[in-house]
């Protein structure tokens, strides 16, 4: 049957299972982390040697570690720290990277050339090595890790956003906004940015995973989050020697990290579908 005038194609929305399952996982981890910010059953730093390597009990569901600290409380606190580092990294790296990419991609010219060659320079180094160099200059600690990882993450975002902007800047719809009297800034932020947000979100989700893994890696190496602060990587690194005596203190932080990474990975897939 011929569609009547004014009948529009209905776009059938399929259920985005990646997005839904990723969303559920991320929500679970986020709730876990938020609870850890305000409430832990025990003080995450209180030691009690009588509980050293205590097995899983109702009082200590994840057992206790080598200093008799409650692993459950530490995982609650530690996932918060890890989350904070990853989010901070994304805000610095993703934010600055996106801005740089928007401007260099849209305006081009010599600033674009200079920044992109600098980008090449940064990309030529392995990420972890570069972060190591920054840490050795700044000194270890939670906030320095955020700063170091943030700087290291800038180029990948700048590159991605730049290539997307280049596709869009010569499109007719950009021209028509120009013809209506829109300024360059308005075109960039109101008209081009919404067009690349799908790509940007999925890159952010992947970036979050990389940040979580980088933080864990750096803390594992002992240059990230410093004791007695708990972070996922820190806990795994400390508990490694006692993996058979107290498996819980390696297993549960690892599990939380897997959930976090899997959740954001699925979200990213969901965004790009």
């Amino acid at each position, binding site marked *: 049957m011929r569609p009547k*005038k*004014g009948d*529009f*194609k209905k*776009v059938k929305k399929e259920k985005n299972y990646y997005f839904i399952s990723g969303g559920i996982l991320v929500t679970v981890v986020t709730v876990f982390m938020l609870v850890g910010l305000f409430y832990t059953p025990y003080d995450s730093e209180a030691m009690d040697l009588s509980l050293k390597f205590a097995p899983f009990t109702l009082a200590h569901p994840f057992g206790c570690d080598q200093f008799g600290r409650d692993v459950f409380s530490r995982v609650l606190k530690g996932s918060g720290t890890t989350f904070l580092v990853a989010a901070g990294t994304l805000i610095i790296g993703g934010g600055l990277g996106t801005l740089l990419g928007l401007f260099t991609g849209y305006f081009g010219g010599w600033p674009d050339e200079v920044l992109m060659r600098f980008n090449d320079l940064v990309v030529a180094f392995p990420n972890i090595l570069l972060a190591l160099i920054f840490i050795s200059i700044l000194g270890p600690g939670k906030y320095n890790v955020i700063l170091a990882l943030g700087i290291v993450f800038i180029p990948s975002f700048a590159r991605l956003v730049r290539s997307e902007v280049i596709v869009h800047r010569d*499109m*007719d*719809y950009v*021209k*028509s*906004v*120009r*013809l*209506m*009297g*829109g*300024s360059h800034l*308005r075109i960039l932020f109101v*008209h081009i940015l*919404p*067009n690349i*947000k799908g790509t940007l979100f999925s890159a952010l989700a992947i970036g979050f995973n990389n940040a979580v893994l980088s933080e864990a890696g750096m803390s594992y190496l002992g240059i990230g989050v410093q004791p007695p602060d708990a972070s996922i990587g820190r806990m795994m690194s400390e508990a490694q020697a006692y993996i058979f005596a107290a498996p819980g203190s390696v297993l549960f932080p690892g599990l939380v990290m897997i959930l976090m990474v899997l959740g954001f990975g699925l979200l990213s897939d969901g965004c790009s579908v």
Partner: protein
Amino acid sequence: MLEIQGLSIEFQDVNPPFLAVQDFFLSMNSGEIVGIVGESGSGKTMTSLALMGLLKRQAKITSGSMMFLGEDLLSKSQKEWQALRGKEISMIFQEPMTSLNPVLTIGRQMEESLRLHTKMEAKERKKKALDMMSQVGLAQPEKLYRCYPHQLSGGMRQRVMIGSALIGNPKLMIADEPTTALDVTIQAQILSLLKKMNQEHGTAILFISHDLRVIQSICSRVVVMYQGKIVESGPVQTVLRSPQQAYTKKLLSAIPNRAYSLRRDRKERIESC
């Protein structure tokens, strides 16, 4: 209203400089529809871009003057241009399929010009947009308001473009081949729409086309351009009925004649038997 005198535009990034438009004259009264006709590369679009202040950096206006509503356009700053574009002069162009932003709703894009040039409230803007949508012959404006461009056909999109160009009530609209990408029946509809908007709003239209039949059906006066120069100008009927210049005659004889081609088709078919 519009007075262009001796306008010359030169591309200065090639050696020797390439003269794209040479000694262009045009005067338009308010409410008038004037056509510019010529083949690709004859300087029609360059002229219209100059009128919008959107010439590329390499293209320079070397001589001439442009007066619009008693103001000198050539001495305008970037800011002044932005205030003028979309408000006093607007432009639509060839590609209705790509000149709308794919991720913004139709309503949002109809209102863009109002957002840029007026301090209207959201409600008022919406009312005006809906009103304009029904004026340009879009059925069910309420429904369409929330639609995205991909849900619309080419003809509907061109109507949206026309609507969003006219919503700020400009004095002059430049239509750069607005019907070229559309099929013949839609072409006729769009042309009569332009005529109707011209009569109702008193907007002068500078109609750029390479299609003489289209020019004939809509314009009162016509300027014929060839290689950047005006070859002939005057009232449409005079120029097209009794062309004085060789190029205009050639252009006219290039219109495929339906009766002739039918006869030839038949002849060829018979010969091939």
